[in-house]
């Protein structure tokens, strides 16, 4: 809730700040002179400042609530208690009452720490000490070292002077102490607002993990091998999908018989999510490379076939007529008119197919794989290696985005006439 409120706060504040700055340095371009902007789609362009602040805000919040070392300390959300705290308990068996001090040392989880040594103190209730990992809690049988214990009918009656009975909690400054049903104090040091690294590691931990896995590898393969395997499967699967799908689409666009024959198959297979085919492909082809490539082939095939088909059907008849009356033969019309005319559609299809393939390969690797980006995050999640999981998700996202950018760039370069007919 609090992170969400901070997020909304930054959104609103940044809006007014950017607006104020923009007004001071306004350029009188054409757009700024428009009086009607609400509902004018062309007047709505992404505000680049907003984009930058948006990304920074995500990292800021991430850093704040993980106690990132990249942020100055004052920006951190309150962290968990660390260090030494004490509280007093009073034990009594009805007649006799004595008080002793408990020293609690809260230490980082990854550092093995012994309970600090303390003097026993006076009276029959002796002083205790305990070491508790940060974000953890600990039950402490305070009477174990006392001269009179639970067996003698002694119970903890007060914590820091506050009368307690089983089930009660007392704030002891560095956390709370709760009396269990059996009368044992349960020490819960304050957890603060930060996330424990096993739920959400700090950004620098994720970056460090990328470095580690890039050099040392994960499960017998380096990071690049994992990502490379995933990409290899996508490229090979897509390649075969296009190799079969494009000629199939052309045939469907040019011949009634092909159209009629393959229409039911294509129209049926198109809405089947490739993920639904994973179990069948595993049954038939196993979890190795063959199975993955068959799956991606199937994912790309229908998309490419439909793209090629609509590319052929989309050719303006006047272009074909013009080519015929300029003396072109059927083969020449195919090569010089129908193919170039369908390329923009095929590129759009290829972009969609690459995106679908990338999503499918990750999902297929989640299910079963020896290597791959999906396998990496799946295995890491089983060991609660959240940093690897987050790293994997980020890399998968970056690669997916990169594939899309690359396809767009190729499209611009290779079919500049797209949408200009």
């Amino acid at each position, binding site marked *: 809730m609090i992170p969400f409120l901070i997020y909304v706060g930054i959104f609103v504040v940044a809006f007014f700040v950017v607006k104020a700055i923009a007004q001071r340095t306004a350029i009188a371009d054409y757009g700024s002179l428009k009086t009607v902007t609400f509902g004018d789609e062309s007047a709505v362009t992404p505000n680049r400042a907003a984009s930058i602040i948006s990304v920074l805000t995500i990292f800021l919040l991430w850093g704040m609530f993980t106690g990132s070392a990249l942020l100055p300390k004052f920006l951190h959300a309150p962290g968990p208690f660390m260090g030494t705290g004490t509280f007093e308990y009073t034990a009594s068996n009805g007649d006799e009452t004595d008080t002793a001090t408990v020293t609690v040392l809260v230490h980082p989880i990854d550092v093995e720490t012994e309970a600090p040594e303390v003097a026993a103190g006076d009276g029959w209730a002796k002083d205790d000490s305990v070491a508790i990992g940060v974000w953890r809690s600990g039950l402490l049988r305070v009477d174990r070292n006392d001269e009179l214990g639970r067996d003698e009918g002694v119970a903890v009656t007060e914590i820091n002077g506050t009368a307690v009975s089983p089930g009660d909690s007392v704030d002891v400054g560095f956390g709370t102490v709760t009396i269990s049903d059996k009368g044992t104090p349960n020490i819960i040091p304050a957890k603060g607002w930060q996330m424990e690294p096993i739920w959400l590691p700090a950004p620098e931990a994720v970056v460090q993990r990328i470095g580690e896995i890039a050099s040392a590898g994960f499960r017998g393969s380096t990071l690049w091998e994992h990502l490379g395997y995933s990409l290899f499967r996508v490229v090979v699967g897509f390649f075969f999908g296009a190799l079969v799908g494009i000629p199939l689409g052309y045939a469907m666009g040019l011949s009634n018989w092909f159209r009629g024959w393959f229409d039911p198959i294509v129209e049926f297979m198109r809405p089947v999510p490739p993920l639904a085919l994973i179990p069948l492909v595993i049954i038939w082809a196993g979890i190795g490379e063959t199975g993955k490539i068959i799956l991606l082939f199937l994912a790309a095939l229908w998309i490419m076939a439909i793209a090629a088909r609509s590319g052929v059907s989309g050719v*303006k008849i*006047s*272009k074909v*007529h*013009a*080519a*015929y*009356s*300029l*003396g*072109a*033969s059927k083969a*020449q019309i195919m090569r*010089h*008119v129908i193919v*170039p*005319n369908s*390329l923009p559609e095929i590129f759009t299809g290829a972009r969609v197919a690459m995106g679908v393939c990338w999503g499918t390969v990750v999902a297929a690797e989640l299910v079963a794989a020896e290597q791959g980006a999906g396998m990496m995050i799946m295995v890491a999640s089983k060991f609660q290696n959240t940093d690897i999981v987050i790293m994997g998700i980020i890399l998968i996202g970056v690669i997916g985005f990169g594939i899309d950018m690359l396809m767009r760039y190729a499209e611009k370069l290779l*079919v*500049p*006439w797209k949408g*200009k*007919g």
Partner: protein
Amino acid sequence: MSGLSIQNLSMRFDLPNGGHVQALQDVSLDLKAGELMSVLGPSGCGKTTLLNIVAGFLAPTSGVLELNGHRVTGPDAERGMVFQQGALFEWMSVRENVGFGPSMKGTPKKDKDDTVNHLLDVVGLQDFKEKAVYELSGGMQQRVALARCLANDPDVILMDEPLGALDALTREKMQSLVLKLWKETGKTIILITHSVEEALLLGERLLVMAPRPGRIHTEYRLPFAELGVGQDLREVKKHPEFAVKREEILGMIWDMEEEIMGRTEGEDA
């Protein structure tokens, strides 16, 4: 025998609902080589159907169509076509578009380049030859279409409302260009248009067609195309005969339109 001969051409096709359409009925005409003919008529009179049959894109249900003494059975480079718009190949440059016909025929590169350069000079697009066609204005695109058609050196040029999508000023300039090209190349040209003025200006012969069934209604022989060659077309329009003919033809087409409307309303009732 040189020229285009159309005898008793009829075109009738069935509709899915069991009815049929008589798009053309008994159309006969002879066009000598080098004649410029414009075709005018209300929508649905079959003028585009006629043009498509001459181009070879449609087969008539009956009748004979001959060019220079041989039957026309399909599209061929001897009959070039200029479309309204959007028939250029946007994946090719202006130069490649104009050189498309010669390329398909396998003309040697040097000859092809000479033809293309000459035609680009004629239509005034020499400076744009490496541009993509979608970078040109509508008028320029139609000039490319004309040049592309001429590059193939066809016997007959068929124009299907080639200037229909242009603005009024560009249209006038293009009309002059069409006249100039007709005179210089001596091609047989059939031009379909919706504009009565254009039909008067760009037709030695003017064919008015009537709908339902599509047929030839009236044919005129006009002096304006000859007058317009090398002259400002606005001067031609001032010719007293021009206004008379324009009113006469407009009245004729209005009557046809009203007849159609009346018939449609009658069917509805």
